[in-house]
C-alpha cells in the first residue's frame, strides 16, 4: 500500500508463443529459491510452485488443435496490491525502491488470508515441514532461506540474486546495480527465451519495450491490480482466453 512511486519497477514479459511447456523455469525457480519437495500426497493443489506453468488447449481436433502454456508466478501487482492490505501483521510489503512484492516467512503466522485475496492463485502455503531428500541440505542455495511449516511463500523475483548483484556492485563501489547484473532464474533458464525480466520504469529496457508492444496484455487487468508481469501472444484464441476483457457497464465499455 506504499504510495511512493518506486525508482525501479521490476517486471517480466512472458511470450506465450515461445513457451513450449518444458518446465525448465519451474525447476530453475525451485532450485534457486530452495522450494521444498513436498510429499506426493500433496496432489496438484497443495504443492509449492512459485512459478506454475498452466497448459491450455483449444479443445479442437487435428489439424486445428493448439496448446498454449502460461507460466504464472506472483504478478507483483503495483496498484492496490491485494495481498498487502490484508496481511494482519505486515509480513507482506511492496518494496518502494523496485516494486517487488515481498513475503517474509519469519513474520507470517500462516493465516492464509493473502492466499484467499490473491486473484492469481500465486501464493503457496507450507502444509508440511519442508522436505529434501536425505543428505541434500548442503546442496541448497545459501542465498535464500528455506521456509518453515505453516507459512505462505511466493515468487519474489529471485531476490537472493538481487542481493548478490547488490553485493557485487558494492564491492566495485557502486550503490546501484546495472540492468544486466540481475536476472531471475526462470528468465535465465528458459531455453526459448520466452521470459524477459527487467526494469519497466526504464523505457529503453527490452522488457519495457515488449510490455508496451501491441501483443502484450496483463492477466485480469480489469481487477485494476496493475500486475507487473505482462504476456505476449499473436494467437487470438489465447488472448481471448487469458486476457479478461472488460464487460459493458451501463452501456459504456469499462476499462
Amino acid at each position, binding site marked *: 500500500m506504499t504510495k511512493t512511486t518506486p525508482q525501479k519497477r521490476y517486471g517480466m514479459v512472458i511470450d506465450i*508463443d515461445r513457451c513450449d511447456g518444458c518446465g525448465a523455469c519451474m525447476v530453475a525457480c525451485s532450485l534457486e529459491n530452495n522450494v521444498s519437495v513436498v510429499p506426493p500426497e500433496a496432489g496438484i493443489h497443495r504443492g509449492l510452485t512459485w512459478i506454475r506453468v498452466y497448459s491450455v488447449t483449444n479443445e479442437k481436433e487435428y489439424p486445428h488443435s493448439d496448446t498454449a502454456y502460461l507460466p504464472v508466478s506472483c504478478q507483483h501487482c503495483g496498484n492496490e496490491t491485494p495481498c498487502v492490505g490484508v496481511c494482519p501483521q505486515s509480513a507482506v510489503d511492496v518494496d518502494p525502491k523496485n516494486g517487488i512484492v515481498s513475503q517474509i516467512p519469519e513474520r507470517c503466522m500462516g493465516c492464509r488470508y493473502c492466499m484467499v485475496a490473491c486473484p492469481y492463485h500465486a501464493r503457496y502455503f507450507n502444509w508440511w515441514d519442508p522436505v529434501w531428500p536425505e543428505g541434500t541440505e548442503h546442496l541448497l542455495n545459501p542465498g535464500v532461506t528455506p521456509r518453515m511449516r505453516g507459512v505462505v511463500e511466493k515468487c519474489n523475483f529471485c531476490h537472493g540474486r538481487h542481493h548478490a548483484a547488490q553485493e557485487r556492485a558494492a564491492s566495485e563501489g557502486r550503490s546501484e546495480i546495472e540492468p544486466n547484473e540481475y536476472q531471475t532464474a526462470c528468465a535465465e533458464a528458459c531455453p526459448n527465451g520466452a521470459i524477459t525480466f527487467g526494469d519497466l520504469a526504464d523505457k529503453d529496457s527490452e522488457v519495457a519495450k515488449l510490455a508496451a508492444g501491441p501483443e502484450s496484455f496483463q492477466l485480469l487487468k480489469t481487477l485494476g491490480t496493475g500486475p507487473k508481469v505482462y504476456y505476449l501472444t499473436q494467437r487470438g484464441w489465447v488472448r481471448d482466453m487469458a486476457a479478461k476483457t472488460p464487460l459493458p457497464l451501463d452501456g459504456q465499455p469499462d476499462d
Partner: protein
Amino acid sequence: MGFSVKRRDFLGLVGGGAVGAALSPAPWKGLDDIAIWTQNWSWKPRLPRGPVEVAFTHCGLCHAGCGLKVRSVGGSPVGVHGVPGHPLSAGFVCALGLAGRYLSYHPSRIVEPTIVGADGQRRGIPFKAAVRQLGDWLDDTRSGGGHGSVAILDNRPGRMRSLAYRKWLGALDGAHIKGLREDTPINRLRAMLDGPAPELGLDIARARTVLSFGAPVLEGLGSGEAGSQLRGRSDSDKPYIVQIETRPSRTARGADLWLRIAPGTETVLALGLANVLVSEGLYDKEIIAQQALDLDGPGGYRELVARFSPKKVSRITGIDAATIKKVARRFASGPAVVIPGVDPGGGPLSAEAQTAAFSLSLLNGDVGRPGGVVARRASGTTQLPREGRLADTVELADVPDGSIRLLIADGVAGGFAIPTSLLERKLNPSEGRVVSLAPFERSALHGADLVIPSTTPFESIDEAGVPIDAPVDSMGLTVPSMRAPDYSVDSLRVLSMVAKSSVVPTITELLRGRSDRIHAGERGSVFDPSKGESVPLTEFKTNGDLWRALTSGGLWTDASATFSCPPFRLMGANAAIRDRLHRALEQPSTADGWAHEITLMPFGWRDASGDGPLPPVMAKLFRETRLRLDSRFATICPKTAGDLGFVEGDKASIKTSLGSITVEVVLDPAVVDGVVHVAVGPSTEAFGDASRGKGDQPLDLPSCENDACWRVIPAKMLEVVS
C-alpha cells in the same frame, strides 16, 4: 475462618508473583524466544555457510554435453548455470541438468553391491565378493561361450571409455553393444555410403528445412544451441520444421508443419516423398548420376519409389496427397536435414524406415553439404595407448537372439529405455546373466543378477558427449563437482579387477592420452568458459596446458572439414532391409495373431534421463502441475474414449499377450483415434524413482518382433472394475 485466611494469603502470593513477573523481562523475553524458535527450529534445514567458489564443467547426464558453471560452498554444488558463449550449448542447460546434482542423493541410488541369490531374493554383498562373482561368471562364459557370449551394453559409445571396453572385450572375443541414443540412426546412413565413412553430424542450424520423423527437434535434440535457434516465432532465417509424428508432442505442437502420421507408416511416407522428388525430377541429378549405385535397374530405387504414388501413400499414412507434394517440394528447395527420431521410450524407427528417410538426404544431395549432413574428422579417439584387438560395435537389434551369456550394462546416464523382452531375447535362455554397473535402479535392468554401483556424472571424470548436430568433433570433460561416495566405483576399475590377460587403463589415463594426441594434432581451438572466448589450440605450448584447460571445464573443438559424398546405395547394402523396403506397402502385420482394438504407442519425456531416475524436484513439479504425465496415465482422444466407454479419470488396463498395466485415462482431442500414448520412464510419484520392477511400465508389454521396433504395440484397453 482459618480457611479463608489461607486462601487470601495464597491469592496474595500469586498476585504478587504475577505482578513481579510482569515487572521482569522474563515473560516478554520468553514470548520473543518462542517466536524466534519457530523461525529457525530444527524442522527446517540449515543453509550451507562459507565463501562461494565457481568452477566450470560439462554435463554428463546426456550426450548433448552442455557446458556448466557450478557454484559450490564447502565442496558441494549449490548452484548450476549455463555457460554463455559455449560453442555447443550456448548458455543452455535443460531442467535435468539444473537439478542433476540431486541425483547423487536420489532415493533409488544403489548404495552397495547386490546379488540375486538362488532363492530369487536380492541381497547386498561386499564389493570384493561381487567382483569375485563377476570373475567366476566370466570364467564360465569363456569356457562355454562362443563369439559375443560376453557383451557390454554401452549407452554412450565413441568415448575413450568405450574403446577400453572394446579392448577388454577384444581379448574375450566379446561384443560391444550400442545402447540407444538419439544419433544411433546416423549409422544407417553411414552404412548406405560405399566404403569406410567418417563420423557424421547433422548441420541443423544451417538447414533450410528440417524433416523430422518424430525427433524432438524443439525439445532439446542435440545441443542446446540448435534447440534455442529452432524455437520460437517463425523467423525467416530459421529452418522450416516439418514434424512427422503421431503423438501431439511438444515439438509437433510447435513445428511449422505437423504431419500427424498413422502409427508405424513412416517408411511409406518417406518413400512417398521420394516418389515426388524422383517423378518431378527435384533431386540432385548430378550427384545421383555420379554416386548412386542402385537407382535404376530391376529392383532399383526408381522402381521401388514408383509404387509409392502420393495417392496410395496418402491412404496409408493419413496425410493428404497435396501436403505430401508440398512437403517434398519444400524439402527439395535447399539444404535439408532428415532426422529419423529415436524416442527415449518409443525407441527407434524400423531399419527400413531409417533407410528410406536417409535416402531422401542422398537424393537431395545433402551429404557433405552445409546445412545437411556433415562429416567429423577423427581426432585421437581411434587408437589406444597400448595396441590390441578391438571388439567391434554392434546394434542391439543385430545381436543374435540368445547369444549373450554375460551382459554387462555400463552405468552412464542418458541411455534410452529398452524393453525388458528385447534384452531377454538376446540373453542365453539357460544361463544368460546380467550385470549392472549403473548407479541407479533402471527399469530395463531391474532383473540384473549382479549390481555393482558406479558413480554419477557429477562425481566422476569422463567425456561429455558430442551432440548429434555438432558439425565437428569436440572434447569436453565432466569434471567432478562433488565427492564420489565410497560405495561407488568406476566401471573400468571393475573390469581391470576381473581382467585376466589385458591391462585396463584408468579413465584418467585414457582421457589424458586423447588430450595429448589432440594437442599433437594441432587442430581446432579451445573454449575458455571463465573468459567466454576461444583460442587456437596452437597457443597451448605443452600438452599439459591443454589438459589443464580441459580439466577446468574447457572445450576443444575441431576445425571443420570438407567432405565430398562418396558413392552410395539409396536402399542400403543390407539385403534384408532392401527386401523389407520392397514389401513396405503390405499392411504391417500385427506383432502376433492376437486380436487387438487399440494401438499402444509408448513414448519418453525429453530430459528425463531415459529410464533412469528423475531428480526429486522435477518429479514434484511435474506431479503438481500435471505438465508431464508419467506411466500411470494414458492419453486417448475423446472419440476413442467414447467408443471404449471411458471418461476422463477412469482407471483402465492396457493388455498385450505379455502382460498388462493399469493407467488413468486422460483425454486430448489432438490424439489419433484408436491410439493410446503412455509415457515410459521414471514415476513422478515418491521422489521420481525409476521403475522398481517388472509389470509397471509400458515397455514390459511389447514383444519386439519386427526388427526390434516397439513404437507401435497392438493392445487391448479394458475398464478396471474397482
